[in-house]
C-alpha cells in the first residue's frame, strides 16, 4: 500500500513538474498589450526618473503595459548581445550607445526594420541622426533604419577654468584652430608646475591615447582625422579610403601630433593604458587641466559640488579644423531597436512612435538634465531650456551636438569599423611610435594595412 502511494506521489509530482514546465511558455508569452523593454540605466538618477515618467505616460495614454528592466551600460550591452545570439529577446532594447550591437546585427538580419517608425519624424531629424540610425542588411542587401533615435551624444572639451586662470591664462585667448587649441594647454601646465609641489605632477592635456579602452580612443582619433582633413576615411557607402592621399596625410599628421604631445610630457604617461573611467577619475581629481570626452556626464557627476559646477568647470565646443574652417562633430545616437523574434513588435513600435514625438522626446531629455542632446534642431530652437543661460554647459553642448555641423559615426557606414575600433588600430599606431620608436609613416602603414584586411572581409555586393 505504502509503495503504491509513493508511486502515486511520485507520478503526481512528476506530472506537476511536467505541467509546470509546459505551461511556462504561456507565462513567457505576455499579453498582447505588453512589451518587455530593456533600457540603459542613466548616469544620473534624473535620467531614470525621466525614462520611467515617459513609460508611465505612454501606459496611461495607450493602455499598453511596458515591463521595464533598467541595467548599467555594460550589463545591457552584454545582455543584449547574448539575447540576440540565443534568440531569447525582449520586445525593445533602449540603448544609449548601441554602436557595438547595431551594425553587426543589422548586417546579419537580426533586427526589425523600423523605417515606418522613423518615417513619422524623419523630416524633423538631423541628417547625422538619420545616418546613425541606418545600417546595411546583408540579407536584404539594402540599407534601412534599425534604430529609433531619440538622443545624440557629442564630445566637448572639459576644462578646469580655475586652473587655467591660476596659471595666468584666459580661456578667451584660446586659439581657434585644432592643433593650436591643444597646444594652448602646454604653457598652462608649465606655469602651474611652477606654483608649488601640489602641482608637481599636474598635466595640461588629458589626451585619451589609450590602448586599453576602445571607445574614447577611437572617438579621439576620429576627431583628429576630421580636424586634419581626413574625415572621409570611411564614407557613407561603407568604403575605406586609406589610399586617399588626404586621408593618409591626415592620419600621419594626427599620429605625429598626438605622440608629440605625449613624448613632450604634456600628457599623463599612463594615458597609454587608461581604461574608460581613468580619464574621468583623473579629471575629477584635477590631475590634468583638460579632457576631450563624450557627453556632459563629466560635469553632471559633480552637479552637487556647486563650486566646481558653477565656478570652476568650463565646457567648450570644437574649434575650427587646422584649415581654419568649422569642423563637424561626429555624433553618436541612442534610442530603441527591436530584435527579430520579439513577441510584441506592434507595442514596441507603438511605444517608439510615441517616444519619438518632439514633445515627448524633449521632456525626456530635459528630465535627464540635458546629458544627451535632441536629434531635432527645431526642439532646441523652440524650447529655451536648451539655449538659456540657466546652466553653465548646456548651451555650448547643444550648439556643438545639434546646431553645429555634425557627421555620423563610421560604425554605421560599415560594421568593419567596429573591429578597427575594437583592435584600437589608431592608438596602437601611436603606441608603436611612443614605445617601439617606429616612424609615424611606418606606424600608419601598419594600421592602414590591418584596417584594409578587416574591411576586405566585409562585402556589400
Amino acid at each position, binding site marked *: 500500500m505504502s509503495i503504491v502511494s509513493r508511486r502515486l506521489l511520485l507520478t503526481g509530482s512528476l506530472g506537476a513538474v511536467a505541467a509546470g514546465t509546459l505551461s511556462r511558455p504561456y507565462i513567457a508569452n505576455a499579453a498582447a498589450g505588453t512589451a518587455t523593454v530593456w533600457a540603459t540605466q542613466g548616469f544620473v538618477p534624473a535620467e531614470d526618473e525621466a525614462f520611467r515618467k515617459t513609460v508611465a505616460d505612454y501606459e496611461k495614454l495607450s493602455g499598453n503595459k511596458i515591463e521595464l528592466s533598467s541595467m548599467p551600460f555594460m550589463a545591457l550591452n552584454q545582455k543584449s548581445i547574448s539575447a540576440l545570439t540565443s534568440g531569447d529577446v525582449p520586445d525593445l532594447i533602449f540603448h544609449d550607445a548601441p554602436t557595438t550591437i547595431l551594425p553587426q546585427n543589422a548586417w546579419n538580419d537580426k533586427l526589425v526594420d523600423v523605417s515606418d517608425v522613423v518615417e513619422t519624424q524623419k523630416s524633423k531629424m538631423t541628417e547625422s541622426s538619420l545616418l546613425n540610425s541606418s545600417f546595411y542588411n546583408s540579407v536584404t542587401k539594402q540599407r534601412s533604419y534599425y534604430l529609433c533615435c531619440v538622443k545624440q551624444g557629442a564630445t566637448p572639451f572639459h576644462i578646469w577654468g580655475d586652473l587655467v586662470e591660476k596659471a595666468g591664462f584666459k580661456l578667451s585667448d584660446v586659439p581657434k584652430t585644432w592643433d593650436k587649441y591643444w597646444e594652448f594647454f602646454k604653457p598652462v601646465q608649465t606655469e602651474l608646475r611652477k606654483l608649488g609641489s601640489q602641482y608637481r605632477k599636474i598635466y595640461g592635456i588629458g589626451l585619451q591615447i589609450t*590602448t586599453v579602452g576602445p571607445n574614447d580612443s577611437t572617438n579621439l582619433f576620429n576627431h583628429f582625422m576630421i580636424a586634419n582633413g581626413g574625415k572621409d576615411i570611411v564614407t557613407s557607402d561603407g568604403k575605406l579610403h586609406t589610399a586617399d592621399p588626404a586621408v593618409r596625410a591626415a592620419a600621419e599628421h594626427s599620429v605625429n601630433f598626438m605622440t608629440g604631445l605625449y613624448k613632450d610630457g604634456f600628457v599623463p604617461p599612463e594615458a597609454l593604458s587608461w*581604461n574608460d573611467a581613468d580619464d574621468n577619475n583623473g579629471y575629477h581629481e584635477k590631475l590634468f587641466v583638460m579632457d576631450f570626452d563624450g557627453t556632459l556626464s563629466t560635469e553632471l557627476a559633480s552637479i552637487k559640488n556647486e563650486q566646481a559646477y558653477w565656478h570652476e568647470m568650463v565646457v567648450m565646443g570644437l574649434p575650427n579644423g587646422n584649415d581654419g574652417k568649422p569642423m563637424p562633430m561626429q555624433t553618436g545616437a541612442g534610442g530603441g531597436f527591436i530584435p527579430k523574434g520579439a513577441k510584441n513588435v506592434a507595442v514596441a513600435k507603438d511605444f517608439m512612435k510615441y517616444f519619438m514625438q518632439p514633445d515627448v522626446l524633449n521632456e525626456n531629455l530635459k528630465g535627464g538634465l540635458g546629458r544627451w542632446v535632441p536629434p531635432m534642431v527645431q526642439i532646441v530652437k523652440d524650447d529655451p531650456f536648451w539655449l538659456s543661460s540657466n546652466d553653465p554647459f548646456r548651451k555650448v553642448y547643444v550648439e556643438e551636438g545639434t546646431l553645429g555641423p555634425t557627421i555620423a559615426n563610421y560604425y554605421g557606414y560599415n560594421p568593419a569599423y567596429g573591429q578597427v575600433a575594437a583592435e584600437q588600430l589608431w592608438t596602437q599606431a601611436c603606441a608603436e611610435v611612443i614605445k617601439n620608436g617606429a616612424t609615424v609613416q611606418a606606424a600608419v602603414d601598419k594600421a592602414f594595412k590591418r584596417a584594409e*584586411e578587416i574591411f576586405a572581409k566585409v562585402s556589400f555586393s
Partner: protein
Amino acid sequence: MSTTQQAVAIGRGLIGRRPVRRGWFGGVHGADYVWAIAFALPYAAIFLAFVVYPICFGIWMGSSLALYQELFSDPRYLMTVANTLIYVGIGVNLKLFVAFLLTGFFIRKSWWTKALLVVFILPWATPALPAYISIHWFLSGTWGLLNSALYDMFNIDGPIYLNDRWMGLSANIGAYIWKTLPFWTVILLAGRMSVPQELYEAAAVDGATGLRRFKHVTLPLMANLYLVCTLLDMVFALGDFNSTFFVSGGGPAMSTEVLATLGIRYAFTLGVPNLGVATVMSALPVLLPLVILLMRKLRMSEGQL
C-alpha cells in the same frame, strides 16, 4: 622498510583501494530505486539545463572552421596564447608552492598564528572587482599609492608599471596570486592537518625529525592533494578574466591579454559572440587533458588526502 614507511604504505593501500562496483544503481531495488530516481531527477534536470545545454550551445557556436581562421589571422592571438601560458604556469605553480610553504607556518598551534590566519584570509574574502580596481589605481604611474610613497619616502619617481608588457603581466599574475593564495593555503592546510598524528609518532620512533619527517611523511601524503589543487587551479586560471581585465585591462597595446579577456572582447566589444566562444574553445586542447587528468586523480584518490 622502516615502521613509518610501512605505516604510510599500509595507509595508502587501505584508503586508496577502490570499492567494488555494484552496478549502475548500486544495488538499489524496488521502492528505494524509485525514490532514488525521484531525488536524482531535479539534479539531472538542472544539470542538463545549466551544464549540458550551455556547453553544447557553446560548442555549436564555436563550431565553424571559419571562426578559427579568423582567430588565427588576428595578430594578437599568438601573443595572447603565450600570455595565457605564462599566466597559468607562473600564477598557479608559484602560488601553490608558496601556499604549501605557508601551511608549515600556519599549522603551528600558537594563538597568534591563528589570528594571523584570519587576517591572511582577508584578500580571499574581499570582492574581486573592487580589489582588482584598487590594485589598478595602486599601480597608477603618476598618482598611484605605490609611486607616491616611493616619492615621499625616497624622492624617486617609480616607473609607469602598466605601460610595460612584462610589468603589466606581472601585475596581473601578482593580483591573481594575492587574491587566491589564502584559499589554496587553507585547502592545503586542512589536508596537512588531517595527516594522522600516529604517522609522525612512528617517524619519530624511527628517528626521523624535521626535514626527514617532512620528506618521508608529509610530502608523500600531501602529493596527491597538491597535484589535484594544481590541476584544479589551472582550470580556474585558464578561465580567469577579472585580474587581467581590471588590473592591466589587457594593455598596453593589448600585450597582456589572455584568452579569457580576448574572448570577452570579441564577444562584447566587437559584438561577435561566436568568435569569443571560438577563442575560449581554442584553449580546449589544454583544458580537456587537464580536466581528464583531474578526474582520474580524483577517482584514484578517493579517501586519500
